[in-house]
């Protein structure tokens, strides 16, 4: 960690862990409700559980992106953050808005538009909050000593994400327009500007972890985000097939969304290629796992499973079924959850000085959560395909079909349990790292030791190493 202000990232990440835990709890509530175990119906009806589950997801991912930004931008701009108190103010106010929104959901106070359920008055607070963040980061970049592609792409991604929140706030009486512009937020976020954020974090991590030349990595970053927008903007059309919009969206949306996997394929190939090219090994192996794993799982979840139902002929049948939920889970997990967990595993040792990399809980966390998530995807897939066949092909009544596929939600629960074990281990490791320490400011030895492995001096300021810490970690005073 080079700058003191990078420490604020820790608190954003801690908030992430908390919100993630809550998100999973609500996932279980829904999975049980799908099995007929809806004892909480009177207190937490399904729509409240669902709004909570998805909004917590979005909020913890955004919190993670913000944490990542606070860690990355000072380094890329080569200066302290513009204002640390502002960063804390922004985090706290974001959490307050989030908590109020979630309490509101349980009291039937919301806007009732999928993924944008936050009630209108709170939307304005979100906007103010994000403006604070953009201002703080913008000032840091603006006054920075250097401009890097990674930094600029990250900033542009965040800035356009903020801008794209606005079309979701226009009120339309015509339900079709309402939907049309809701997708400007939802689709253009996850299949557009968030990919910039993801790509930038990925590039940063690859630069740090593989030691491949920045110029090479950043060139490919441009190619990838170029592919993203080339396909993703008109790819929005895959949500405009059947909502009362003109027919030409069928082929425009079909064609361009079918190209969207290219960007994800690019990321996966790129990450694997860089990983191969790295001559020397960074000691933080787990972070490399999460980084390369993220690129691969994003391709599987978003690229492959997205493609599976994006052609209009297929989407006609799968549109609005559990097949969509299958894709939604693995895509969000691979692309966005994993990139946040990657930057957390990368930055924690640097902020706290505790080298909990390559320890058993960390490795298990990686494998268990991923295997669990793949299992969940499988359960949703089987339920979804059965639903499509019975309901859309054979014309059986919705509720009759739901009874038939109840058993797959038991499978889902099992896989989700495995997944949650992985997440628990991750959080356990997070807590074990302890708090960020001022001694680590300016100490880049943990990163540097593999770059210049011959420089081996001992540092007295570093904390006593964990029992589980591998002996390889030599400490050097920067």
């Amino acid at each position, binding site marked *: 960690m080079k700058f003191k202000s990078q420490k604020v990232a820790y608190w954003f990440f801690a908030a992430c862990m908390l919100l993630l835990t809550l998100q999973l709890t609500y996932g279980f509530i829904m999975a049980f409700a799908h099995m007929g175990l809806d004892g909480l119906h009177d207190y937490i009806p399904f729509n409240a559980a669902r709004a909570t589950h998805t909004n917590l997801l979005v909020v913890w991912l955004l919190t993670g992106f913000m944490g990542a930004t606070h860690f990355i931008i000072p380094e890329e701009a080569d200066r302290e953050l513009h204002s640390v108190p502002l960063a804390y103010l922004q985090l706290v106010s974001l959490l307050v808005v989030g908590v109020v929104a979630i309490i509101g959901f349980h009291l039937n106070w919301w806007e009732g538009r999928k993924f944008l359920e936050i009630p209108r008055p709170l939307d304005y607070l979100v906007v103010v909050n994000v403006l604070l963040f953009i201002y703080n980061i913008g000032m840091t970049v603006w006054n920075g000593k250097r401009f890097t592609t990674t930094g600029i792409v990250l900033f542009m991604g965040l800035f356009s994400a903020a801008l794209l929140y606005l079309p979701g706030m226009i009120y339309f009486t015509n339900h079709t327009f309402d939907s049309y512009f809701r997708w400007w937020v939802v689709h253009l976020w996850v299949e557009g500007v968030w990919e910039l954020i993801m790509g930038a974090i990925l590039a940063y991590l690859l630069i740090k972890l593989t030691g491949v030349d920045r110029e090479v990595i950043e060139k490919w970053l441009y*190619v990838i985000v170029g592919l993203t927008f080339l396909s993703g903007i008109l790819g929005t059309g895959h949500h405009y097939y059947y909502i009362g*919009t003109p027919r030409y969206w069928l082929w425009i949306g079909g064609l361009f969304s079918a190209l969207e996997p290219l960007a994800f394929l690019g990321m996966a190939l790129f990450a694997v290629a860089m990983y191969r090219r790295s001559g020397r090994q960074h000691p933080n192996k787990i972070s490399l796992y999460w980084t390369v794993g993220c690129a691969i799982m994003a391709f599987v979840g978003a690229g492959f499973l997205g493609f599976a139902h994006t052609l209009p002929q297929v989407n006609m049948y799968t549109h609005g079924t559990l097949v969509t939920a299958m894709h939604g889970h693995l895509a969000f997990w691979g692309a966005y959850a994993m990139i946040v967990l990657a930057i957390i595993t990368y930055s924690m040792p640097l902020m706290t000085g505790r080298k909990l990399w390559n320890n058993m809980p960390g490795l298990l966390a990686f494998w268990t959560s991923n295997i669990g998530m793949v299992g969940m995807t499988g359960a949703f897939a089987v339920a979804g395909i059965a639903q499509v066949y019975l309901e859309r092909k054979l014309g059986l009544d919705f509720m009759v079909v*739901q*009874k038939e596929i109840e058993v797959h939600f038991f499978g889902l629960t099992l896989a989700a349990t495995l997944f949650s074990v992985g997440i628990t281990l991750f959080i356990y490791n997070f807590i074990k790292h302890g708090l960020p320490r001022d001694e680590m400011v300016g100490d880049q030895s943990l990163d540097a030791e593999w770059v210049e492995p011959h420089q081996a001096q001992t540092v007295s300021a570093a904390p006593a190493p964990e029992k589980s810490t591998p002996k390889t970690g030599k400490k050097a005073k920067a």
Partner: protein
Amino acid sequence: MLSKSQARTFFLVGTLLFSVLFLFLTIDTVRQVPAQTRAKNITPAVARGKHLWDQNNCMGCHTLLGEGAYYAPELTKVYERRGAAWMDVFLKDPQAMFPGQRKMVKYKFSDQDRQDLIAFFKWIGEMDLNGFPPRPSRDLNAGLPAQVTPPAPPSTRADVPAPRPTTQPSSQAATRVGAAPQVAAAPAMPVKFQQLCVACHMLGGKGGRVGPALDGVGKKYNVTSLRKWLEDPQGVKPGTAMPKLPFTAQELDQMVAFLLAQK
């Protein structure tokens, strides 16, 4: 090979080009949507209905136009499927309509609210959705090949009220071809029958699949047992999926007479 500045140009030009194209298509879409969605039919009632839809986050359980959650039925064609009368009864107390089933929140909708929601669904159902929802390619309602269909289970005990409140679709689907529709005989089909009962029961091959088919129901019941069943399904068979429907005394008489004629 590709240089970094070429890569940047690719990104900038591509993004700009496709953003402009997207905006252009959006303008065209905005022009066409009013006609395609029959926007002239958006009455104040429809607008209020949409507001209720949003305010209560109905999309948190249902899909509409295929968008929403996967816990409760797709509602795009609900007006066509159920009709206004059924929806009005259902929205008063959703859990009464499907007792013991997956629950819908019991909202305190006023009479006006319910009418507004129904108007909203009617408007939604009349949009041109480019073919969505798809017609089932093998609609079981449209009938199975005769040889695959087992004959209707014979009912022997005429005095015992034994409607099978089964949730298995196959057995009810099976009964319909075997029994000849007797609709033409004797009392005319009450309006309420068409509005409410067919949502769950089949008669002459048309209707829902939640309860058993009603062809031949007159053979299983007599006046008293049938009247008792309709007045209080739960009392006769606790746990049944059959709701107590809001019939007036006169409607009940008509219904009993009509059903007993289904021999």
